[in-house]
């Protein structure tokens, strides 16, 4: 027993959850009901002025919204679902959060405790009684299954502690739905006692800090790589200060994009298959890289092919990560440090003040040359008035009219690397995307989570026609809850990213990737077809416009942001323009593609 006897009283399981959420000061619970969830919802009935129930049109959307909310606020929301299909539909969202070190508490309903192994409606029973935990265990930091009311009380603070400490991640709590309405003897724990008082932001030993600084000062071509960990650890300010103090250029991974303002003079851009040439060229020429919270994934590293993005070794890698399992996963380290990015950067800033700043003059000159080459390449697209619209022109025009601190969610597909390469993230911490699990629809729903977190901000989702159609009901949810988000669809009548793989990796044999009508016996006789997205939006009570002329982009986006109404802007883009490759990506056994920009580096 962890609770003292004098605090015990009778609670229904659902009351325990509701009161605990209140103590955690949770503003929203998102989910979708079924018979396995109404017992829980009932206890929130009288608390709706403190905890608002938000109910999108599918469980996956609920998870995506909570995931996005955490990325912005670091507050993990509870996501409630019923039994059976609800939990299964939420699995994609929980995985999406897990891969990107985001978090929410997934509360799934289960058959009642006396029905275990009966095969009662929706029970996962044929291998093991009531075994949803086995379904999600690969995608959560921990999975609990309560068998008493008291256990619900025990597990909740542990779950919140686990989600918010160390490397964040979602946690799962499976509750047989009879427990929601059964009274049990327990106490509602205080977060201060059980979860909030954990110290976990550990730094590195002084000698390690000294050694990192020494390596950086002795280097001739040092770089700082900001991975997603910088955003997760909320170390963006520390990153900028350290880079400025040391005069060391910074580049990011896709998940780190926005950790530093794109226009910061020390910033080089994103390194990756579809990154920025200055960042990629710098990464392959650096002698020391200080990597902060980066996994070195295939899309970031040119599938680890030497010379395309990295030359580690010879480049010496100093890798800091809160999760030791990520250190030296893909590249050997010169120095690996297990620690919280924010704390270690603070230590580095303090210690750096004792030494002098190196100029790295030659290195900066060289990098300025790379930046100039890239600028020369991209500048003409800013004014490109081709029709169908060039994707770059679209993004530049959104940037022109969106407020500086607009929150940008890309979805998955070509729209993601288009944003990665051409969206300038000016206010740190305003670019979000699904990098690791990369579930389509995350951005489409995530932008609603963003609007819950930052109602005053302009929240934009740039998505594909494929991704939008997976979650078009996001518009209805936005109208219902007055969440005036803006969706900008890069409409190319295709699941473009996959169609491009067929064009470039499979000799142009396009099958199952164009949205077209079926006609006769041969699928390809059909016409390209999509629903009228603008009309769909209007039918749901929001605004909808279709844009085909480049000159109409900026006015449409400006009007959407100003309107304070959920708006869909359906933009017909040039479907044949590939996203420029600045390094590469391989789909073994097919050989890697050569970069479209920048001298090929093969070693």
């Amino acid at each position: 027993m962890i609770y003292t006897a004098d605090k015990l009283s009778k609670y229904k399981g659902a009351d325990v959850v509701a009161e605990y959420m209140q103590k955690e000061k949770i503003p929203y619970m998102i989910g979708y009901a079924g018979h396995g969830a109404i017992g829980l919802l009932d206890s929130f009935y009288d608390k709706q002025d403190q905890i608002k129930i938000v109910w999108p049109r599918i469980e996956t959307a609920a998870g995506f919204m909570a995931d996005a909310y955490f990325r912005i606020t670091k507050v993990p929301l509870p996501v409630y679902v019923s039994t059976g299909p609800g939990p299964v539909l939420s699995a994609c969202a929980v995985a999406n959060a897990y891969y990107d070190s985001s978090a929410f508490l997934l509360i799934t309903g289960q058959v009642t405790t006396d029905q275990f192994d009966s095969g009662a409606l929706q029970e996962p029973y044929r291998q093991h009684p009531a075994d949803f935990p086995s379904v999600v265990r690969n995608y959560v930091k921990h999975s609990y299954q309560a068998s008493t009311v008291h256990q619900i009380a025990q597990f909740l603070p542990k779950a919140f502690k686990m989600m918010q400490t160390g490397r964040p991640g979602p946690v799962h709590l499976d509750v047989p739905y009879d427990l929601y309405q059964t009274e049990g003897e327990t106490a509602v724990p205080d977060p201060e006692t059980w979860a909030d008082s954990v110290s976990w932001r550990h730094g590195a030993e002084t000698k390690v800090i000294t050694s990192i600084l020494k390596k950086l000062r002795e280097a001739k071509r040092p770089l700082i790589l900001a991975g997603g960990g910088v955003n997760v650890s909320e170390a963006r300010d520390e990153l900028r200060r350290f880079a400025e103090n040391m005069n060391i250029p910074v580049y990011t991974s896709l998940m780190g994009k926005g950790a530093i303002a794109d226009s910061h003079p020390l910033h080089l851009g994103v390194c990756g298959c579809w990154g920025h040439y200055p960042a990629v060229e710098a990464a392959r020429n650096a002698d020391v890289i200080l990597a902060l919270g980066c996994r070195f994934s295939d899309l970031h590293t040119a599938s680890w092919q030497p010379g395309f993005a990295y030359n580690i070794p010879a480049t010496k890698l100093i890798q800091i990560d809160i999760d030791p399992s990520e250190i030296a996963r893909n590249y050997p380290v010169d120095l690996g440090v297990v620690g919280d990015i924010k704390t270690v950067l603070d230590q580095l800033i303090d210690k750096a003040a004792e030494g002098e700043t190196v100029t790295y003059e030659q290195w900066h000159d060289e990098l300025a040359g790379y930046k100039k080459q890239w600028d020369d390449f991209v500048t003409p697209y800013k004014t490109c008035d081709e029709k169908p619209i060039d994707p770059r022109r679209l993004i530049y025009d959104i940037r022109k009219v969106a407020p500086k601190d607009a929150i940008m969610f890309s979805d998955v597909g070509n729209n993601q690397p288009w944003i990665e390469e051409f969206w300038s993230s000016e206010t740190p911490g305003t670019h979000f995307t699904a990098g690791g699990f990369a579930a389509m629809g995350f951005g489409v729903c995530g932008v609603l989570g963003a609007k819950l977190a930052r109602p005053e901000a302009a929240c934009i989702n740039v998505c594909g026609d494929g991704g939008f159609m997976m979650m078009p009901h996001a518009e209805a949810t936005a109208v219902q809850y007055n969440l005036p988000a803006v969706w900008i669809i890069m409409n190319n009548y295709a699941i473009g990213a996959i169609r491009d793989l067929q064009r470039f990796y499979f000799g142009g044999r396009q099958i199952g990737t164009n949205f077209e009508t079926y006609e006769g016996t041969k699928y390809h006789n059909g016409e390209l077809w999509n629903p009228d997205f603008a009309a769909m939006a209007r039918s749901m009570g929001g605004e909808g416009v279709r844009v085909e002329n480049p000159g109409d982009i900026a006015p449409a986006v400006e009007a959407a942001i100003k309107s304070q109404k959920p708006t869909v802007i359906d933009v017909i883009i040039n479907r044949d323009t590939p996203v420029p490759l600045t390094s590469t990506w391989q789909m073994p056994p097919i050989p890697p593609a050569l970069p479209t920009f920048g001298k090929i580096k093969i070693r």
Partner: protein
Amino acid sequence: MVSNLTLIDYLEKESSYLCLNILESALVCCRKNGNGVIPEPLLRDLADLFDCRTLESEIKNLLERKVLIQTGEGISLNREKIHSLSIHLNQLKKAMKLTFTEKKVTAGIFLNELVTYLEQEASCLVEEEANDCTEYLLVWRDNRYRLQLAFSPGWLPAVADEAAADNIYFAVLGPFAAQNWQKMLHYYGYPAFRNNTAYYDPWHHQKMNISKGGLFSYFDWFFRDRYGSKFFIPDEFPCKLHSIGLLRYNDEK
């Protein structure tokens, strides 16, 4: 029988790259196999690099001078010449002149500087063998690297199988671009060749190399840091890799 002196005299007077190619190849074959015979494909490659007629007349010349001998098995180096020839070729290789905008060095000094740079920069590098500033065997991160000055781009395929079997990366440095080295490109179709060999031509600031040894990154850095220069990749190289199916272009290219 021709004396050592006349051979050296000949080499110095003529300084014919073709002759140096043949002699270097013959030496490599002597080291490699018992009978020292230059295999037919290697002779064909040399004919390809220069031309058939010139090759034949140079071989005839060297046979007449008894530097090469013809046996039933083929053409090989006169065993008596191996020692002196090897010393002399090394002298000539080392003495090859490299002219950069700010610096003039000999090839021997260049290679020596490269090895010193590797020793400084690549931590835990061990120099296992060093031969007269023309050849080094280095061990780094459990991989072995043979670095060698060379005249000829022609004989590298002859050692590729052995290098692959012994798990050695074989890097040659020489004035290859001026000697039609693109004729060797078809060998990149062979895994042993592409995975274990590398050509560097500091005379023309070029390289052809897709072996995945991390130490090669330091070659580029050495050239950059010590000579402010860059090894470029000749255009034919990625084109050939593309035609073999080892690289692809996306359609913007």
